[in-house]
């Protein structure tokens, strides 16, 4: 949520910049962001515009359907190429998960982006160290994300994904470096899955969970206390 909020502050996604939430299972965070602008679109049921994974809806700022992991970055490459063809100064940002980095298409796309010098493409990896059924290290093995992306000729940056000041500083730096060396940038944003809810923190319980109304109230109170 903090990553999307920082991106929303930093770029102008209402106008020309393009944001793709490739880790579509985090759609609730995206809808929370969009709800400020499209309050009447949020309902459940047939032909709902807010399904469990984002469905393309340009009027709402969803440029491409996501949910099938890995496809968002490939689409982002296409958007960045089209922005360049239009001589547009705008940026395409793709938010992917560290578990999503298991997908081969991520690396196909990263290679294409670097070979086409897509300095207008930015990737943010939400590195919460978990994927659907366990920790990324248990499921996928230890992967040197920094080394992998560097070897693909990307600028690699790192920050605390819950700290909005650090995120914005890192976004600024990534844009500056990309403009200088004409290569795409990736920000590895370290996060804690379920942060703010003690019983969910650093577990993958919250990857898919339904809350009872009572539990929802309890968690909302707990979040309010934490904030105050």
């Amino acid at each position, binding site marked *: 949520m903090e990553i999307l909020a920082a991106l929303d502050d930093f770029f102008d996604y209402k106008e020309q910049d393009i944001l793709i939430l490739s880790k579509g299972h985090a759609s609730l965070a995206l809808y929370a962001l969009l709800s400020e602008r499209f309050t009447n679109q949020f309902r459940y049921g047939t032909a709902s515009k807010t399904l469990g994974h984002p469905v393309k809806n340009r009027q709402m700022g969803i440029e491409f359907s996501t949910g099938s992991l890995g496809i968002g970055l490939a689409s982002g490459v296409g958007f960045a190429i089209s922005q360049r063809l*239009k001589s547009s100064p705008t940026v395409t940002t793709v938010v992917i998960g560290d578990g999503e980095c298991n997908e081969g298409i991520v690396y196909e796309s990263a290679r294409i982006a670097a070979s086409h010098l897509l300095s207008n493409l930015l990737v943010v990896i939400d590195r919460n160290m978990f994927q659907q059924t366990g920790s990324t290290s248990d499921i996928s093995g230890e992967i040197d994300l920094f080394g992998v992306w560097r070897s693909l000729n990307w600028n690699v940056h790192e920050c605390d994904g819950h700290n909005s000041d650090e995120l914005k500083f890192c976004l600024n730096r990534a844009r500056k470096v990309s403009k200088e060396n004409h290569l795409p940038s990736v920000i590895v944003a370290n996060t804690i899955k379920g942060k703010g809810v003690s019983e969910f923190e650093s577990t993958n319980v919250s990857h898919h969970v339904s809350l009872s109304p009572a539990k929802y109230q309890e968690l909302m109170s707990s979040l309010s206390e934490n904030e105050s």
Partner: protein
Amino acid sequence: MNLKGHSLRSAYGLILNDRALRRDFLVSSCDTSTSAGLEKFKRQHSSRYIEFGISEQAAVAAASAIASQGFPVFFSTFAPFLVFRAAEQIKLSVSYDSSPVCLVGLASGIVQSHLGGTHCSMEDLALISSFSNIEIISPCTILDLEVAIDRYLANPKPMYIRLTGDSKILSSTSNSHIDFFDQIKEGKDVAIVFTGSVLVQAEEVSKLLAARNFKPAMFSVASINSENYDSIMRILNPYQRVYFVEEHVRSGSLYSKVADKANFGRFGYIGLAGDYSRLGGKYFEALAEYGLSAERICSRIVDEMHLIC
């Protein structure tokens, strides 16, 4: 343009090179430009050519995204690697999101038999025709290919062009440019419908049958998922027997589609139409939306039985 002696796939690149003088569009491929006759285009219009490297999945998603931003885009690579390797991207980026990209499957069918099964594509129509929103053209002649390319450029919509055969191919038939349908020979009793480059065999088939006292009517059809199945059936109705000759397995072929329609009198199909726009809600609500609730199954049957009775 004189494209005599060219295969469909080498003609493809030359046609694009010609159209590039008058139309604005992009061309992309996965390290297969030489296999698609695109060398000249690459040289003469380098800023309009996008090389994705050997990355079919990412390439289809990226080309679709570019097309969705208002640029007509042709993307070509060998049919088996395009349709099967990138099937999910075709489903999601092209069909589901309706991105107006023109996908071109090179060397489909069994023209690359000498290279083995990995390079053949006998089933691509079965897969791609199961997705909604994608127009499918299997050119029988070079002229069919030109018409398909011009149709896309005039009004970019999701399209798949299936290129079969080698350099032994017909340049045109007399009327094939009219909705990709032509009667190429008058006849009686038996009709033969050809799709794709295998049409080049028609004349020889006709001679061999004539030697056995048959006088077949012959047709070429390049549009595989045409909405004109009814008119095709009307034209074929007078013939006692109709054969479809296609370089493809039965599933997904033109035969399967026309036969499906022809059987409608007795067999009805109640299933999904491949339209994603009605999703949402709970499972049984979704079933109802797609006509699969008990009530909607019943009313469909009752309505049609009343029509029949």
